[in-house]
């Protein structure tokens, strides 16, 4: 009898239906527990009610040995004050960065340009030529940036300072680099208001040893990190953060070294206060108080 050849059987697919059922239950459950944007809190210091002086008695004399550090923000500059004196003003140009809904691209405009465009019946312009909603453009502000400005005198309109930043996403600055002398890799821009990056400012190549303002952050740049670096206007917040770190380190022995008062005028947006509080906390000032400029 001829031997019957056995036909190779069709490979059987595993029964995936039970697994699908499990996934269908798991996904809605996880969806309800997923946090796409995480919230946090920033604590501030307020005097306790019992400590509040409700009488008209003159306030006690300030302690001459104390640091009495304050950080003031005006519409034009940031300034650090301590023991009755002030450091040089850090001038800035305020810029608003929007994310356009039409092309999902970031655009940066000066507030005065946005306001004049809105007054003439137009919204801020996107890269693809479309206009943002002139009624709701305020809700589209992704970030309020303060570009540091180099001024020769009070009358000088100044020039934007450009610096080398690390970047995680395309053209969005992350941390400014400093060299071995703790100086920013920065230079004033060219053209009107210094809005053109200076050609002399080059991106550091892979292998260069650089640091950021974060303690112990010195590192040798890897090729992938070096490729992502960008040249972007130096933030006035970063300039202030560097000064705050230096002050906190220098006066570490003083009793009130962890205290800082952030002073602002009535029109200052809340976002700027939070940015300053962040920089102060990162510099080591754990007790932050708020006060009004001239009030």
């Amino acid at each position, binding site marked *: 009898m001829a031997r019957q050849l056995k036909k190779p059987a069709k490979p059987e697919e595993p029964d995936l239906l039970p697994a*699908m059922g499990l996934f269908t239950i798991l*996904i809605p459950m996880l969806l309800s527990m997923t946090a796409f944007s995480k919230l946090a809190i920033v604590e501030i210091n307020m005097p*306790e009610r019992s400590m509040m002086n409700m009488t008209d008695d003159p306030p006690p004399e300030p302690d001459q040995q104390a640091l009495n550090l304050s950080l003031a923000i005006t519409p034009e500059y940031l300034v650090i004050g301590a023991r009755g004196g002030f450091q040089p003003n850090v001038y800035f140009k305020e810029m608003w960065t929007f994310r356009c809904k039409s092309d999902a691209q970031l655009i940066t405009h000066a507030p005065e340009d946005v306001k004049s465009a809105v007054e003439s019946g137009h919204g801020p312009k996107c890269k693809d030529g479309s206009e943002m909603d002139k009624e709701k453009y305020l809700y589209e502000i992704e970030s309020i940036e303060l570009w540091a400005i180099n001024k020769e005198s009070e009358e000088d309109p100044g020039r934007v300072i450009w610096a080398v930043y690390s970047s995680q996403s395309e053209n969005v600055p992350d941390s400014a680099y400093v060299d071995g002398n703790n100086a920013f890799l920065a230079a004033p821009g060219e053209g009107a208001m210094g809005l053109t990056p200076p050609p002399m400012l080059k991106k550091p190549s892979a292998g260069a040893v650089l640091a950021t303002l974060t303690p112990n952050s010195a590192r040798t740049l890897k090729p992938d990190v070096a490729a992502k670096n960008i040249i972007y206007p130096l933030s006035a917040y970063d300039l202030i953060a560097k000064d705050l770190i230096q002050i906190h380190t220098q006066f570490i022995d003083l009793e009130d070294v962890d205290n800082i008062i952030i002073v602002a*005028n*009535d029109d200052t947006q809340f*976002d700027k206060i939070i940015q300053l509080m962040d920089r102060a906390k990162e510099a080591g000032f754990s007790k932050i108080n708020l006060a009004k400029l001239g009030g």
Partner: protein
Amino acid sequence: MARRTRKFSEDVPFSLTSMMDMMTIILVFMIKNLDAEGQLLTQAENLILPVSTSKIQPKEVALTVVVDNNYVVVDNAKIVPTEDVLKQEDLLVTKVDSVLKERRATEQEHALKMGLPADEAGNIIVQIDKNIPYDAMYKVMATCGFSGYTHIAFAVMQKNGGEE
């Protein structure tokens, strides 16, 4: 020529493999973003919170005051238009103060019943739109302080969605 009838092949089983791949990707993404601790703080509507590097999470549920472009809201009740707060000269926002004092008194009463110290400073979380002027923020903050809520925290959005 006779028309050739088309032979139907055997029933092809519905392949779930590609669907399984998709589900696996979604599942991994969800697990990555999973917040097992839960959220004690939820963002109010009609406002954009500022982005911060802070990672501090509220330890317990606290009374929330919301300041958006239109209203000052205490515990989901609209109390006073933000415009009115900006216009007033006085630091104390009277309407907000009376609501907060009422809430504080209830909290203290509850603490006494539970045998807890009632004279501790009250906790409050203030959610403020990032474009709100400092003037409104300062007045609301001062009002909270006057009402006995001296542990004030501002709600913020974590930078990069809280990722390292």
